[in-house]
């Protein structure tokens, strides 16, 4: 019983800590200059492989990449700037 309570407390503590960090950062959510300067191809190579293999730009038409980009933003929780750069790269590199 004591073990469960301490597990509960630790878990809740971690959630609260993450929440505080998130809430405090919502007002200052600005990327660093280096991150803001990243190109679409960089973001494509870094982010897609977090879940699956990096997709070939030749896979879909530009119109489909727009839709897939929105779907992937909801799955990978990309920022809008990241999504736009990745989609532009995929459309232009076909």
């Amino acid at each position, binding site marked *: *019983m004591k073990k*469960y309570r301490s*597990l*509960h407390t630790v*878990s*809740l503590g*971690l*959630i609260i800590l*993450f*929440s505080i*960090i*998130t809430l405090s*950062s*919502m007002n*200052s*959510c*600005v*990327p*660093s200059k*280096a*991150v*803001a300067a990243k190109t679409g191809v960089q973001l494509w190579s*870094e*982010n897609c*492989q*977090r*879940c*699956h*293999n*990096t*997709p*070939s730009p030749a*896979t879909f038409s*530009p*119109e*489909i990449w*727009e*839709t*897939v980009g*929105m*779907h992937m*933003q*909801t*799955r*990978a*929780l*990309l*920022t*809008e*700037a*990241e999504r736009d750069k990745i989609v532009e790269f995929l459309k232009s590199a076909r």
Partner: protein
Amino acid sequence: MKQNFSFKSYGLLIILLMGIFARSFAQTTAAVDSSVYDRLNYLEEQINYHKSGDDHFMVVGLTTFGFASNKTTNTLNGVTTKSRTNSFADANHYEFSPMFLWRHGKKFLMEFEPSFANNGLGVNWADISYFATPNLIIRAGYLVLPFGTYSKKQAAGWINKLATDPMGITALPTTDYGVEIEGGLPIGSMKMNYDFALSNGLQLNADGTLTGGNIVDNNNNKTFTGRLGILPFSNSSLELGVSGMFGKVGNYGSSFQDVKGNMYAFDLNYVKTFVPILLNIKGQYNIVNIGDANYVSPVDTTQTYTFKNHSTAGFIQCAIRPTGIQALHDLELAARYTTYSTPSNSTFGSDQHSFSIGLNYWLSWRAVARITYETYTGNSTASQALNAFTGTTNSNTLYLQFSIQL
């Protein structure tokens, strides 16, 4: 006189020739101009015809099928029984799931994924998202809840590194009717993401297990599910996440009506290239705590029993792919250890462990043929008084599987 005549004749001839040449040149130019204009007009029409509109509808999807050969040994009260199955379609993992996506401009996206699996039709998700601001997406419908990352991001056959799901991680229902907000946040060189949902919630069954996805809420209490993720490195190689799910799980008006569920999940995802190897490490640990309750005994319905309804499930998985070695870059080796513990003295208590190892051959970035070998050990901790104790089970299974996203 004769010379004058000859000059005049030559002059007239030259003027005549120039006239003829000029006329024929003008005719040729006009003809060329006309055909080029016609061609341009035609191409313009074609471009306009194919030019994308504000809305777009598309179908993608995935299918996974395979073969499973299983040998199971169970020992109960000193008696050992053996069973063996060889099945096409890999019953636990076969699926055919088209996914429909409708985009309305750049603000709305509808997603619907029906699925044929386990010999029946179901729906994986059906929701609509509104892209409200650069860092905020609002969603409503039948959602995949943000509890850990496996169900939402890694379970698809063409994404998974092994032929099976880690047991226990997918045991908790993570799809429900509700509303959700989510988004990614840049913070200097780091990133964070948040995903919060309010849904009807899980339902406590008569034996202490949980079901979900109820279109009518079983009580007046809504369940909150949330996940926060942090990507501390600028190259997004590492993501750490913590999730919680809180809400009443008992039916309104029943003896369970005040029973609460407090659930937590911790996840890790690390993907980085160390030339010539792509290293991929994933893990998740779930903790499920359900409040105390008295359950009706299956042996004698006039009696009740209780147990500590606490479950845990976790896995750690590592995959390496030699992307920098031309002869081997389509191969990927993966291994996973999974542990799953369900409440002792219940009707379903057990301590289970499995180890899986597999080799993937990537036919393309989204098509894979794989072989996975999995060993499993399960020691029942279920109540002997309730005739639920099932002894010790060991099994070995070989999977051959193909999965593709289209």
